[in-house]
């Protein structure tokens, strides 16, 4: 998704890096689009009310208009060659190159609960998510990860259900 605009040449080379900086116009486009969604929704809402002078729509309008304006400013900044320095995290370096297979494996791990949580319950969902994340971080002991994930899932389900959390059935598809 990101970084597909590498082909835009940048004339000003800042910092002596010599690498053409990507221009992520799509970033500004998303902000503007979010603003437009708010504005579209706000049109269906009353802007004024009898006493207050403003109604439920005004705040939505303000948020939407703000996003559109800020998105346009960001667009201008990007056109002028604004540079984005990825944040440093504890186990990651902002200057590292992206490892896309790892990213998509981790994304899949986050998607698994959407598909399986309701149907096959927390323990198995946890097992699958756990294994996928561990894999995206370079673990190749898949069998062990499945076991660890199952243990974490089962223990968490039992513990939190006891504490009064509504986590659904243990294995809903089998009727538990």
């Amino acid at each position, binding site marked *: 998704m990101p970084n597909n605009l590498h082909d835009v040449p940048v004339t000003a080379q800042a910092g002596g890096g010599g690498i053409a900086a990507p221009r992520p116009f799509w970033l500004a486009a998303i902000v503007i689009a979010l603003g437009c969604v708010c504005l579209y929704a706000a049109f269906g809402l009353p802007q004024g009310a009898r006493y*207050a002078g403003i109604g439920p729509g005004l705040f939505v309008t303000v948020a939407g208009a703000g996003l559109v304006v800020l998105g346009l400013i960001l667009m201008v900044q990007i056109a002028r060659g604004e540079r984005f320095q990825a944040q440093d995290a504890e186990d990651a370096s902002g200057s590292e190159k992206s490892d896309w297979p790892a990213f998509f494996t981790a994304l899949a791990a986050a998607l698994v609960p959407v598909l399986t949580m309701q149907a096959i319950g927390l323990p198995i969902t946890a097992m699958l998510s756990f294994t996928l994340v561990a894999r995206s971080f370079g673990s190749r002991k898949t069998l062990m990860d499945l076991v660890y994930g199952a243990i974490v899932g089962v223990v968490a389900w039992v513990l939190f259900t006891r504490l009064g959390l509504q986590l659904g059935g243990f294995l809903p598809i089998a009727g538990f």
Partner: protein
Amino acid sequence: MQTFSLLMDGFGVALQPMNLFYALLGSILGTAIGILPGIGPALTIALLLPVTITVAPTSAFIMFAGVLYGAMYGGSTTSILINTPGEAGSMMTALEGNKMARSGRGAAALATAAIGSFVAGTIATILLTFAAPAVAEIAFYFRPADYFALTVLAFTSMAVVMGTSRVRGFIALFIGLALGTIGIDEMSGQPRLTFGVSALLDGMELTVVLVSLFAVGEILYVASRYRSNSDALIPIKGQAWMTKEDWKRSWKPWLRGTALGFPMGALPAGGSEIPTMLSYTLERKLSKHPEEFGHGAIEGVAGPEAANNAAAAGILIPLLTLGLPTSATAAVLLAAFQNYGLQPGPFLFTSNPQLVWGLIASLYVGNVMLLVLNLPLAGIWVKLLAIPRPQLYAGILVFATIGIWGVSGSVVDLLCMVVIGLAGYVMRVYDFPIAPVLIGLILGPMAEVQLRTALAAGQGNPAVLVSTPLSAILLTIAMLFLLVPILLKRLKASA
């Protein structure tokens, strides 16, 4: 002396065995997550929220305060011993502390950090004890216009101060404001931005947004740029704690760090990062041995560590007295109050004195617990880092999923987790600050209610918004936050 007797009542609450247990649990959890990468105090408290439905509010908040303080203690340990700051507030500690450890003075660095945290935490808690009721007293006179002006000031200062770019700070804020409008409008009962999805009628839960941004966003980001940290743990076995010289060089930075951290934490400027940086710079300027900075100056550990603990106490003042969160952690604490049907603010002091004073008293208790937990046991805590990273991050995702699923058992929430998590990833890659999203989300609805109440009282005349001296002053300061940096840039360009 009324404060004193209220505080004594508070100790009566905090010293109940059950509450002592929760304070200890919070302190242990806080220290652990301060040491572990990938999970901080805001995320931890958010994940604990659903679990606390069966816990009395006083006990829950005592535990949360333990997490908040504990994270500040734990963060310093990893900064010093392996040069990976566990929390943003311990970044400065890593600069000098790790150098000290490398030259065989790790034990002294740990000691000045832990004792400094204790001194600062205790002084800041004393300040909190006396300042909070005074501020609450003033806040009784706040009108809706004043509250609205206060939230506007919080918005602009957060967006300007956090992160590297004002525009990106404001984009983060406005995304939060937009998310905050989702759901049934409190005042008119109309659904907004729900697009017919009934699961959205209740609005966007702060927990869902926070967990997605902090846990899922972080996991996606770190997975894509994972760099296994090969820095080895520096052993401290057999080393002496602080020498007389170390004490002499530490006590002033502790006090100065407290003086910086406490008021800065109370201001809407995002918590502990800025005061720790300021404290570090100040100590380097004042030091008699500036040449030691960068090579293991003890002042550079003592000052920032004191500052970050004092800031942790500072954020409780606006939170408890005004209901105004000044950092991501404060935002989730506010959400916790709302979960219990409590609204922090001046009335909390009169309606729930047990809770407020029990919480404040527990901060004194927690500081003692944390000093005992951290100073002699630092060597045990760092063993947590032996958990292999793949399984650690995998566990964090599982708990994040449980945290979100446990809120309302909704698949829509799980889908939001993926989408907002992706947004969190993009925000990290393109350097957007995350705290303004949360502040916008939780303060936006509050700002809107105050705005509409103020306007309704003024029969729609916008002049009512600046009708009190305080609201006029606050809005002016908010404007200055916005305009001064732009003017300075212009002046520099023309000079």
